[in-house]
């Protein structure tokens, strides 16, 4: 009996360790290849255990640090304001919808809900944003289309306000003579911090990872985020070479293309991979909340 139980746990760990290897192995190849000598990459290919290390890829990237720093700034300048704005708009809307006797509440809920059921499609959205709002090649193009308000985050937050915040608390605050905005800011929000952090994680990651808005609306390389540069490098392997001044200063003008690809991928992936363990609790909460109602 004891031995079969032990055998079972061994089996469980073997399965889970196999999953860990499957999940991490591609990242290991990416990271190791980014610090492999370019000649080794050309002869041996990408590998998790390179024969000879070399920093050409990163030297090349940081030879002209301006390009990579600009891409990071674009990503950050989209992710941070986008997430904040999204949280403000979503929270305000969700709180309004959670008010019990609000006239026309059902109509407004339906107005929100319908956006989850039916949409005009990609082309009409593209035409409206470009022909009427003229957002091509602006920072706004990376922040506003698609990502700012997700109906199901509103619904999740509304449900949270309805179930976790007793009516008496709102009423008590009103008797004190506080305005609605003050009640929301001073009483409701502090009680809703867990859900706000969860949704902030979800929205923040969508902004950090987004490349689709860039694909549709941005052609000006000054506005390329990290993800966007990665996307352009797939279309055009020489994208980086033609967009940096690194070429001339690098000896013999040899571009470490193979290593460079993996070095760029690593710069796009590693920051959020490092953050995950710290915010995992909230992220997992966000995932499970969004799933069933999403």
């Amino acid at each position: 009996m004891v031995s079969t139980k032990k055998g079972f746990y061994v089996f469980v760990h073997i399965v889970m360790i196999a999953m860990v290897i499957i999940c991490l192995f591609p990242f290991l190849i990416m990271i190791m290849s980014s610090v492999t000598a370019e000649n080794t990459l050309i002869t041996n290919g990408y590998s998790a255990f390179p024969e000879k290390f070399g920093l050409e890829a990163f030297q090349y990237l940081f030879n002209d640090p301006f390009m990579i720093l600009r891409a990071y700034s674009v990503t950050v300048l989209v992710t941070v304001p986008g997430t904040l704005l999204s949280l403000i708009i979503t929270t305000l809307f969700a709180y309004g919808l959670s008010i019990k006797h609000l006239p026309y509440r059902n109509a407004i809920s339906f107005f929100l809900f319908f956006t989850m059921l039916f949409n005009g499609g990609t082309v009409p959205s593209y035409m409206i944003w470009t022909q009427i709002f003229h957002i091509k090649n602006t920072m706004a193009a990376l922040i506003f289309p698609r990502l700012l308000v997700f109906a199901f985050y509103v619904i999740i937050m509304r449900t949270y306000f309805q179930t976790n915040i007793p009516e008496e608390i709102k009423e008590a605050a009103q008797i004190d003579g506080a305005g609605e905005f003050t009640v929301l800011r001073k009483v409701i929000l502090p009680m809703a911090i867990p859900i706000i952090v969860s949704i902030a994680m979800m929205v923040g990651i969508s902004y950090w990872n987004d490349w689709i808005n860039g694909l549709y609306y941005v052609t000006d390389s000054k506005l390329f985020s990290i993800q966007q540069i990665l996307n352009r490098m797939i279309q055009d392997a020489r994208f980086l070479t033609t967009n940096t001044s690194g070429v001339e200063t690098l000896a013999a003008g040899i571009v470490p293309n193979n290593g460079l690809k993996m070095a760029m991928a690593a710069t796009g992936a590693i920051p959020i991979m490092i953050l995950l363990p710290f915010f995992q609790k909230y992220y997992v909460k966000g995932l499970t909340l969004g799933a069933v109602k999403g």
Partner: protein
Amino acid sequence: MDVAVSKKKWVKIKKYFPFYLMMLPAVIYLIINNYMPLSGIILAFEEYSVKGGIYGSKLVGFDNFKYLLVTKDAWIITRNTILYNLAFIILGTVFSIFIAVMLNEVPGKRMKKIYQTVTLYPYLISIVVTAYLVNSFLSTETGFINKAILGSFGVENISWYSEPKNWPVIIVVVYLWKNFGYHTILYFSTLIGIDRGYYEAAALDGASRWQQTKYISLPFLKPTIITLTLLSIGRIFYSDFGLFYQVPMNSGALYDVTQTIDTYVYRGLMQLGDIGMSTAAGLYQSVVGFVLVLGANFAVKKISADDALF
């Protein structure tokens, strides 16, 4: 009397005015981002010209839909979208449930958390980065598979990005790799809600681990499985654009097996500039998708009313 009623109503609306003010930004955003594009559906019935614009181009009735149906594109994109989604739903569900059951049996919170973090990494990163990871395996000249695996057996290199026949498998494998951690979490969160007492009682009666899984875990998972599956069926007409565009590196040789409705709409708009036809394809997706979501929700409601979308 009418005046009194409307006055009372007015007072009420005034009382709630701050709440309407709070909701205004989101309402404006939804109008711009979600409702204004609905008016653009007219593009599906026009022969778009720059001069005429969105609302003033020449109306052509259902011509765009006719052209779409005449080519074999409509059939290919529908087939690919649905078959891939079916494979994702079936394999993804089975695999994720298996891993969730395993994860639930891992002794110790710390190890559980570590396994969870690692299996979420593929889900967390962007699909563009995923495409690079896939490329590190499949690149013809420097890929891990060609160099390290096929090379060491002396097998000839395969040029992966120009041979369609392997791609149905590649796409499914990449999908599973990227998404299983997420789906595992969904099932796992149901499993941790089960009272340990059931397992202890079963163990006392001499039930094996396998029997405990079969008679306790799976029945508890059933509502979650049904709900998630029905919701996926409701979205069977939609595909992850990045998975089908980035991972095959937009390779034209692979369109037959990688083109879905979403990539077709993108290419129609941005590469061919055929606004009428790509709007038509998008509208086809929206309308069928709408019917499927309603149907799926109806089914969920019958089974477990709490999980229904509306």
